[in-house]
């Protein structure tokens, strides 16, 4: 079955008692045992919960993995995976990474003796250089956030396999609709499902998909032991969002491409980072391993002083953290999502005070371009006014 069909059918026709087309929200925490020593398969909601299980099975299948695990946030998914490692272990991590991942590694995992080296994961020499005898895992974001750097997953996951280390791919920005890292050799896929999978900026959630029996069993134990699981209502909401994933991603990509092209030639814009553009250095690899592009991109304005008035003048586009929703959101990574990454690392990768990230929604592209165009002009006018005064 094609992925569009599988998405639309998540949870459908799975409820045997009433035939309800939408799977019920099982808000129960405890499950009656039919007899002592017998179980319905459900005992206690932290361990396994019916609504959550439908979601977990769906994401495992969509990502071509063996087991899925739903967590209370993307970071909860990541901390659950990190608990697979032990004191003394070392990880290699994408240099241009989400601020929350950096914070988790440096402020929490470091205290438990798990260390990390940050490199451009698309650079095999850099990976070799970062590799240590105690390296146990590789964490890849592709595209990266916010600079949209592309990693060749097949190449790098093969390298990881040869080294005997676990490869973990954050597939938040592309979703299994556009990219399936496990098919390219990854061991674990992780999602902040708050983003495109949920798609409506209304549910905080994280998902893990594992490949292989041992890893899947270990993850089930960690998921249950740490207890950072997703609630049934949120599980249901997330599945509801996932049913329209294909439609949304198509429109996100269409809009993002149109706006990125508009900005590419705009006099106030210096650079546009979007892998759908032929000028993007990762264009070819992206085309090889994914069937399309995400709905976010970032761009640099010519003058950092334009940022504040642009954010003030956008009307249709909301100035807010997060991404991947039907509504368009603009983020200022240097002060929002990436504020926890030290300045020298941020500047090394290019997350500076001129960079804006645009999560393009599914509004009409013309309206979004008009809003942005007007905000840019108004910002420029203010800047000129200030310099004349």
């Amino acid at each position, binding site marked *: 079955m094609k992925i569009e069909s599988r998405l639309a059918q998540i949870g459908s026709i799975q409820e045997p008692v009433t035939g309800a087309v939408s799977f019920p929200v099982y*808000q129960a925490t405890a499950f009656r045992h039919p007899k002592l020593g017998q179980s319905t398969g459900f005992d206690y909601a932290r361990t396994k919960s019916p609504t959550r299980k439908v979601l977990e099975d769906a994401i495992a299948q969509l990502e071509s993995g063996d087991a899925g695990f739903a967590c209370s946030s993307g970071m909860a998914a990541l901390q659950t995976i990190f608990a697979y490692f032990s004191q003394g272990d070392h990880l290699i991590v994408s240099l241009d990474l989400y601020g929350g991942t950096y914070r988790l590694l440096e402020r929490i995992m470091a205290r438990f003796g798990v260390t990390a080296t940050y490199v451009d994961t698309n650079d095999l020499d850099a990976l070799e250089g970062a590799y240590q005898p105690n390296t146990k895992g590789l964490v890849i974001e592709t595209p990266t956030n916010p600079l949209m750097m592309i990693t060749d997953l097949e190449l790098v996951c093969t390298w990881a396999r040869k080294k005997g280390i676990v490869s973990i791919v954050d597939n938040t920005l592309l979703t299994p609709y556009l990219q399936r890292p496990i098919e390219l050799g990854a061991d674990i896929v992780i999602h902040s499902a708050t983003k495109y999978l949920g798609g409506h900026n209304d549910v*905080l959630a994280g998902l893990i998909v594992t490949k292989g029996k041992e890893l899947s069993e270990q993850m089930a134990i960690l998921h249950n032991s740490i*207890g950072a*699981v997703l609630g049934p209502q*949120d599980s249901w909401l997330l599945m509801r969002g996932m049913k329209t994933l294909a439609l949304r991603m198509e429109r996100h990509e269409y809009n993002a491409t149109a706006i990125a092209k508009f900005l590419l030639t705009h006099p106030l814009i210096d650079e546009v980072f979007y892998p759908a553009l032929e000028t993007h250095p990762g264009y070819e690899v992206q085309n090889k391993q994914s069937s399309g592009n995400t709905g976010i991109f970032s761009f640099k304005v010519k003058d950092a002083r334009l940022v504040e008035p642009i954010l003030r003048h956008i009307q249709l586009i909301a*100035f*807010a953290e997060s991404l991947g929703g039907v509504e368009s959101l603009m983020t200022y990574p240097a002060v929002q999502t990436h504020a926890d990454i030290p300045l020298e690392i941020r500047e090394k990768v290019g997350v500076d005070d001129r960079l804006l990230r645009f999560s393009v929604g599914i509004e009409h592209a013309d309206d979004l371009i008009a809003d942005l165009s007007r905000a840019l002009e108004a910002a420029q006018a203010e800047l000129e006014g200030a310099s004349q005064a």
Partner: protein
Amino acid sequence: MSHHGEDTKFATKLIHFGAEIDKATGASSVPIYQASTFHQEDVDAHQPYDYTRSGNPTRQALEDYIALLEGGTRGFAFASGMAAISSALMLLSQGDHVVCTEDVYGGTYRLLTTIMNRMGVESTFVDMTDLAQVRAALRPNTKAIFLETPSNPTLKITDIAAIVAIAQEHDVLTMLDNTFMTPYHQRPIELGVDIVLHSATKFLGGHSDVLAGLAVVASDSLGRRMKQIQNGMGNVLGIQDSWLLMRGMKTLKARMEGSETSARRLAGWLSEQADVEAVFYPGLPNHPGREIHEKQSTGYGAVVSFDVGSGERAKQLMSRVRIPLVAVSLGAVESILSYPAMMSHASMPREVRLQRGITDGLVRYSVGLEDIEDIIEDLEQALRG
């Protein structure tokens, strides 16, 4: 609000906790803010909410609510009781050592012995009712004492103030799982405990319909550290679940009173039955920890464990009861009967289990809100066949 002074009685606090009326609309219940992100008006201005993992108005109302009830400085809501406990333990670092009560909840035991140990945090399990054992277990690198009182399922009582005194003498944090008592019966922070933890799935939620964990800290500095961990690890409670939990907590006093009154009756009745070998309930006159318990708590709780003599009789009882749900978990409006040897403690080696008083004949009854006459009648027919 003026009537939220410290002298406000607990029952009133449960209803008037500060967020019971929505400021914008006057709505009589906190709105469910099912938003993951918040629009920022100004790039430089700091708004209270930006991203739901970091803060959400519905979850915040719950966090302030439990902090008020426990008398702490700050509350935190987590995806489960284990998420709350794992977050508290993440305050520690590699090389640290924990002294933990030996009959701690199995999930906490598993966390300490299969995950925290790999992270370089060692644990020693002691009989927490024996202060000499606690003292003897302390090491130069001991950073926390983890206690549960009453313990589960044998309802042993730990002297909270005495443990706090030892901890303070050695500059060690105290963490207490207050799930069985709830702040209605026992407020450990008032006795000097640093962090109170809850599986709010149990009595606080009270309806077997929401999985949740809560933590309350006693100081601002612990509050800041805990916030960093909660936000960093992201194991927060969902919005709908936060609302459901608050809804449950409003009736905490009424439920605890009803269940506790019945539990006392049940424990008394069980003590009189010749074919019940032992009854464990801190409200019984012969309970060894009764005096200490009465010093630190205002009630005995709603969980009664008893030994019917053999595994065979226990299994017979489990299959014959009609009122209680035969399940894991506890602390709900419906009575729940559990068999620790085959449920919560099934993974424990038999010798260790027996050593800890979890015999083959031991069952745990979490008394719900059904009529006590019906509960006793049901148990009578189940015991006698």
